[in-house]
């Protein structure tokens, strides 16, 4: 695979079709976790790890089980179970190897299971008919895009804490309005011809 093709996938997933700001995947953690930069960085790393593995694993499940046995209608059920199992494994792995990171992520880790970005990337890889290598690159890039959006949002929200906002806007509403501005900014990437 040419380097250029790889670059197209990466830039496409990180900037042009950013998972959060363009495809609307991963909004719940995007709003829920982005209050602090540190939590956001931790969550982003976890998501990159999980999404890449999940993309690869579900691709294999699809190719060697679902298509093989002609049971593609079991895609949703099998994918979500694979993801849930993967998150569980990641949790146990982190608990043993890095208790600090584990306790920092706290409740966010199991929440990655219901992060629509994870199941979303799994389904998109199949729908957009990617090869295994493309799947891994795309999944990782999509997660990086999610992380970038998350960390940027956290940076802005930390500053917003110091500002005197009208009461109805505090918390989620202002976060969405900030997200709107970020989305407009990211739209600037859409003209990129690679």
């Amino acid at each position, binding site marked *: 695979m040419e380097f250029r093709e790889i670059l197209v996938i990466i830039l496409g997933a990180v900037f042009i079709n950013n998972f959060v700001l363009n495809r609307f995947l991963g909004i719940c953690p995007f709003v829920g976790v982005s209050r602090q930069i540190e939590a956001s960085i931790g969550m982003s790393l976890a998501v990159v790890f999980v999404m890449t593995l999940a993309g690869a694993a579900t691709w294999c499940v699809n190719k060697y089980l679902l298509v093989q046995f002609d049971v593609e*209608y079991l895609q949703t059920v099998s994918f979500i*179970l694979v993801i849930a199992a993967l998150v569980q494994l990641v949790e146990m792995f982190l608990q043993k190897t890095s208790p600090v990171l584990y306790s920092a992520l706290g409740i966010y880790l199991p929440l990655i299971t219901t992060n629509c970005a994870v199941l979303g990337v799994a389904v998109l890889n199949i729908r957009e008919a990617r090869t295994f290598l493309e799947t891994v690159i795309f999944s990782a890039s999509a997660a990086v895009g999610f992380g970038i959006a998350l960390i940027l949002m956290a940076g802005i929200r930390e500053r917003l804490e110091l500002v005197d906002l009208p009461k109805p806007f505090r918390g989620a509403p202002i976060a969405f309005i900030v997200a709107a501005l970020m989305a407009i900014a990211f739209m600037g990437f859409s003209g990129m011809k690679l």
Partner: protein
Amino acid sequence: MGHMHEFTKGIWKENPVLRLMLGLCPTLAVSTAVDNAIGMGIAFTIVLLGSNVVISLIRGFIPKQVRIPCFIVVIATFVTIIDLSMHAFQPKLHEALGIFVPLIVVNCIVLGRAEAFASRNSVFASILDALGMGVGFTLALFVLAFVRELLGTGMVTLFGHAIVSRPLLQPAIVMILPPGAFVTLGLMMALMNKIGEKRT
């Protein structure tokens, strides 16, 4: 009737989208057109109803440690049933909603209601809960889609019939794009906060 409250809470006080802030992904993505919003609302309500009923029925048999995987399988089954049915009987809607049909399985509302309510309450109460949440979700989606479609395209079409067709202003395309989704939802939430404030 004491039970009516299980139904009405999902519409305003515990509106899953605007108050509990769950199920945001499909809300933003699908609200580009009123048709899609209503279609998604109905699909979601059916899934929620089905999974709430089944989980409530078998709640005595599910051991606590594996309850989440069990819930997930039940929910995923209903999502697939809706996915296949929609593909067969409403292919245009199915294509419009795209990946957000299978994504109903990770819609935190469904898993949330299963865990917080259906696994602990009677079937009847679970039905009311599901209907209430479903109506609340659909309503939030509908209002969001109505605003976005009206301001973004100048008209609103419902199942092929134009219900608002004289554009008062030049349509602002940004409304049907992601920024429009975010800003409309943010303003709606702020509005609800303001109204909630006034009541207390």
